[in-house]
């Protein structure tokens, strides 16, 4: 890899691969929050998320020389995080799985999903949109009500900004299925948010 001075991740990854711990510290600081956010979606507790995050960066440090820059460093780290969360889940015998609900049928009728999401209904009260922090909290809470695959596709694409190719690689699904999955997941998220407003939470 030739260092690209316009890409701090690539430059730091190259340096870290030669043993530069300060460079690794920089890239870890840059991506810590993203790894933690995804770990939190894949684990049942804040402590487990911390464990996954630590394990992710330990593994990344060990294997930094194998980062091929054929995608973003963030995508590479999040792929490690997902595998780490899966390993942790397998070790956690007898505890409830991290999924909040079963993933729903991928062939569920789009119009039904749309209606549940508010398509064809009066728009929500604009007053509700004024408090930014409450809106962010409501989004985070609503994400946690989705099945794991729905949560992940939204987190990786919409929140973390990965490309469709990177999302496909992390989720281990065909590229052409990512956008349809994402669209349905967003509709379910809208339905969950609508339900919360209707419930007055």
């Amino acid at each position, binding site marked *: 890899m030739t260092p690209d001075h316009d890409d701090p991740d690539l430059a730091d990854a190259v340096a870290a691969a030669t043993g530069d711990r*300060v460079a690794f510290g*920089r890239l870890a*600081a840059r991506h810590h*929050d*993203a790894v933690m*956010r995804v770990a939190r979606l894949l684990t049942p507790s804040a402590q487990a998320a911390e464990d996954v995050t630590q394990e992710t960066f330990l593994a990344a440090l060990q294997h930094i020389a194998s980062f091929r820059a054929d995608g973003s460093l963030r995508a590479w780290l999040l792929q490690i995080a997902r595998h780490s969360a899966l390993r942790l889940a397998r070790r956690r015998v007898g505890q409830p799985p991290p999924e909040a609900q079963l993933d729903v049928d991928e062939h569920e009728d*789009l*119009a039904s999903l*749309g*209606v549940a*999401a*508010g*398509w*064809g209904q*009066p*728009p*929500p009260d604009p007053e509700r*949109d004024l408090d930014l922090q409450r*809106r*962010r909290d409501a*989004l*985070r809470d609503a994400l946690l009500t989705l099945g794991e695959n729905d949560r992940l596709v*939204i987190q990786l694409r*919409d*929140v*973390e*900004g990965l490309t469709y190719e990177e999302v496909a690689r992390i989720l281990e699904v065909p590229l052409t299925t990512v*956008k*349809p999955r*994402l*669209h349905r997941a*967003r509709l379910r*998220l*809208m339905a969950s*948010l609508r339900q919360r407003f209707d419930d007055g939470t």
Partner: protein
Amino acid sequence: MAHEREVAGIRCTEVLALLADYIDGDLPDHRRRQIDEHLAGCSWCEDFGGAYGALVTGLRELGAPAPTPPLDPAPPKVE
């Protein structure tokens, strides 16, 4: 049913199906214009499209980096 209504030569159900491509800017120009015209003439789809777009914007903001305190000053370069 209202969602079978056709405006600007495209049905509401088709607009629903194409929303992700629409906000990605992934549609051929004629299709994008057709949806623009549909939204201008269909308040249900316009409202829902607005809500869908606002959701995606809100999600992107969740991932926006929070201001962090500066890291320690760079260590002296080792030649």
